């Protein structure tokens, strides 16, 4: 007979050994055909001379879970993952089985569910792989539904992930959370909304980058040839401020209800600071919009400071008015357009879109095709200083993807 007290006795050896070991899931992508994208990346990294830094590319056990032994298992995982090319250069949180399990519970979607294939190397994006990368990025479990929504957005054809990953332009996904969930998750929409300091903004954006990196294989200088990259490639994620936004929310504007939580994803080239109001924004739009962006048309974004937004609203100006105003005034002259790099040097034979040709004809070329191609976000510190921003875009086709975030019990 086993007495009642003898039942929960633990195996001491086992306990010690488990405390010293990390059971980590591999974040990297496997194609539907079973190939690991690392084998392709190794060839590219070798061609590009990256193996002196990434010394262990493709050198890993071809399985789901790996055991890393202590006593410094955490440091070991970090070093190994970095050398295998699986990080953004910053330390990662080891994606242990129990951390990933917590993330999966919070995500509420089955582990093996396939969301799609991440371009350009076509790693299969499963919910589990998303969770692994989210853990590595430093996400809290409660962030998982947002990361899943972001992953789904990246996989929409109009996001053009292949283009975003491989272009020489420095484009990156812009994530905007519109919904009350932002407050629950403590995602910043005020002072310092674009960072640093808030975990949700930092980690969710970073998770998206790691997914692109580890499942799509968008390794800089190996597959991704963005001329410079940009700091936004670590994370570019903020919330719309419900309280300071005097207009209808982004989610309502895009056909959802005020009670929904919606992640809006579009492509951003950079964040250009604009201290001023609509005219200052329009002027920056006119000059900071590349001819390339005009060639493909796109969805640009402006972030409007609470102070400016309130002033405009007090004057009775609607969001639609703001968009129309920016569209109308954010235009450059024909000569300026024609002497810019692309039309002058590379694309003199290109057939430009009608709206651009019409703009040249009337000596006023808009930044985007229509007012609706401008996403207006209200965020920033509540001070009477107009700290706004313009986020130009890149690439075809125009994209503003809105994903409703699944409510979960966590």
């Amino acid at each position, binding site marked *: 007979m086993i007495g009642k007290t003898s039942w929960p006795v633990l*195996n001491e*050896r*086992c306990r010690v*050994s*488990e405390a010293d*070991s990390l*059971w980590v899931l591999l974040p990297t992508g496997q*194609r*539907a*055909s*079973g*190939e*690991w994208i690392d*084998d392709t990346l190794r060839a590219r990294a070798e061609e590009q001379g990256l193996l002196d830094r990434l010394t262990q590319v493709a050198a890993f*056990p*071809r*399985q*789901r*879970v790996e*055991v890393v032994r202590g006593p410094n298992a955490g440091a070991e995982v970090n070093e190994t993952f970095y050398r295998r090319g699986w990080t953004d250069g910053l330390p990662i949180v080891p994606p242990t*089985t129990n951390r990933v399990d917590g993330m999966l519970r919070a995500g509420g979607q089955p582990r*093996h569910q*396939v969301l799609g294939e991440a371009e350009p190397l076509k790693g299969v994006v499963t919910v589990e792989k998303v969770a692994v990368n989210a853990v590595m990025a430093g996400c809290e479990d409660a962030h998982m539904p947002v990361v899943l929504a972001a992953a789904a957005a990246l996989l929409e054809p109009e996001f053009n992930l292949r283009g975003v990953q491989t272009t020489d332009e420095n484009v990156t996904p812009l994530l905007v959370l519109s919904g009350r969930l932002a407050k629950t998750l403590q995602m910043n929409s005020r002072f310092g909304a674009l960072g640093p300091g808030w975990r949700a903004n930092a980690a969710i954006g970073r998770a998206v980058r790691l997914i692109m990196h580890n499942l799509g294989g968008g390794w800089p200088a190996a597959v991704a040839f963005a001329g410079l990259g940009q700091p936004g490639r670590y994370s570019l994620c903020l919330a719309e401020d419900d309280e300071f936004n005097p207009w209808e929310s982004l989610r309502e504007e895009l056909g959802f209800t005020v009670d929904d939580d919606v992640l809006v994803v579009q492509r951003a080239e950079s964040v250009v600071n604009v201290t001023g109001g609509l005219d200052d924004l329009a002027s920056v739009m006119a000059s900071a919009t590349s001819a390339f962006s005009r060639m493909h048309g796109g969805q640009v974004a402006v972030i409007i400071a609470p102070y400016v937004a309130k002033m405009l609203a007090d004057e009775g100006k609607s969001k639609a008015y703001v968009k129309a105003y920016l569209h109308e005034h954010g235009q450059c002259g024909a000569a300026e357009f024609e002497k810019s790099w692309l039309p002058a040097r590379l694309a003199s034979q290109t057939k430009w879109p009608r709206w651009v040709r019409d703009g040249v004809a009337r000596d006023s070329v808009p930044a985007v095709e229509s007012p609706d191609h401008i996403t207006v976000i209200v965020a920033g510190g509540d001070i009477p200083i107009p700290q706004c921003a313009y986020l130009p875009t890149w690439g075809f086709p125009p994209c503003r993807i809105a994903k409703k975030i699944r409510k979960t019990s966590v």
Partner: protein
Amino acid sequence: MLRASAAVEAAGIPSSSLVCDGFLGQGATTAVGLGLPNLPMAAVPGHVDTQTDNELRDNLTSVTLRAVIENLTAAPPAAVMIPEPGPQDVVMDGSFEEINRFFYENGWSDGLPIVPPSREKVERFLAFTDLPAEHEIGKMAPDNRQATVWNVAVNGVMAGCRPQYMPVLVALAEAMCDPGYGVEHSGNTPGAETLITINGPIIKELEFNYEQGALRDGFQANTAIGRWWRLYLRNVAGFLPHQTDKGTFGNTWRVVLAENEDVLAKIGWPPHAADFGHGRGDNVVTISRFTGGDVIASVFGQKPEDMLPYLADALISQTGWQLIFTVGMADGSYNPLLVLSPILAETMAKAGWSKDDVRQWLFENARIPARKFEQYIVEYTNFYSGGRSMFELAQLGKANELYGTSQDPDRLVPLVCNPMDIQIAVSGDPGRTNAQVFSHNGILGFPTARAIRLPNDWQNKLAGAE
């Protein structure tokens, strides 16, 4: 279907396989095993069986067609070898709990604890075969991995087998690789599970249970060898749920069914393996996939004529969609199994009935109206489209002539094409008048037998075993 596409591609002809959404993952993994990991597939949204003609047309023209054109006009990228650990690599070093967790996390275990397959344990298994460890048994879909004596032993250790079970395991691996069995179908959606039956003196030598509770766990040989089967399908053939194994429900692996050869000898009936050309006293395993079935409780009667109508009725009630294996798909491959408890077999034998007499009676009497048969293969399942009656199919040579004797839809027709297609085995509680019917999965797991080859000096080795 992908196997046909692979053959066509191998012949240098572009292909495009139409695959329903839910099967794309299975398609991709299956393609790897076919040696063509980039076999072009075109997705069909949803499942075709539940769509209206208009929905299907819209889905095909808006989604599938584009992919078909691309598949047929672009060359698929070249295949790349997918590395995996070598067969004799040590993949993990740790405590019992750690090794179990590691194997489970990496998909190499069925969820129950495994015995860690250390080199030393594997070698104890190898001592029970005269074949070399690297002996190649055959390659199996979907992973196209080589079955070897070594990996038979590794999975044997893991399943909790004893080393002396090794000759049985090798014979089972050989049967699994037999093209006549059709292991490649093991991931199909009905999710049938294989039943292993065993004959010969080895039943007693390895202490298989063949009496009361014959299909219950609790007896190491029956249980561990049954578990080995599923582990081998997982780890060597490569059938994994959510990937290559699309069994809609599936069920747990079955323990091995050992026949009661004492009773068979007493009543003069041949062993089950005799159906496959093996003699009395031969050590033989037979594998066959079954989708279901049931116990037939309390078979009442003093003579065969009293008992058989109930058993015939049981064959009828446990046979439905499986009739597509009699007419429609791989004609004449339906082989249901009737397991009789010893007392039932003895009562029949006492009345002078041979096993073949029983089969003949069941063949003649386990019959259903032709209209019901047609309902299963046409109306309910749509397995046989085109609206032809079985009479017409028989006239065209597409169904056994048994089905072409009349056009009367109410005529009674047999469930199988030949009395010998009804398998009969004797096992279970010797004194209870119950039987069991297993509904067979036709060509997708056809009955296949293999003689068990014992190593030299078997008796001495056995005497020295744990």
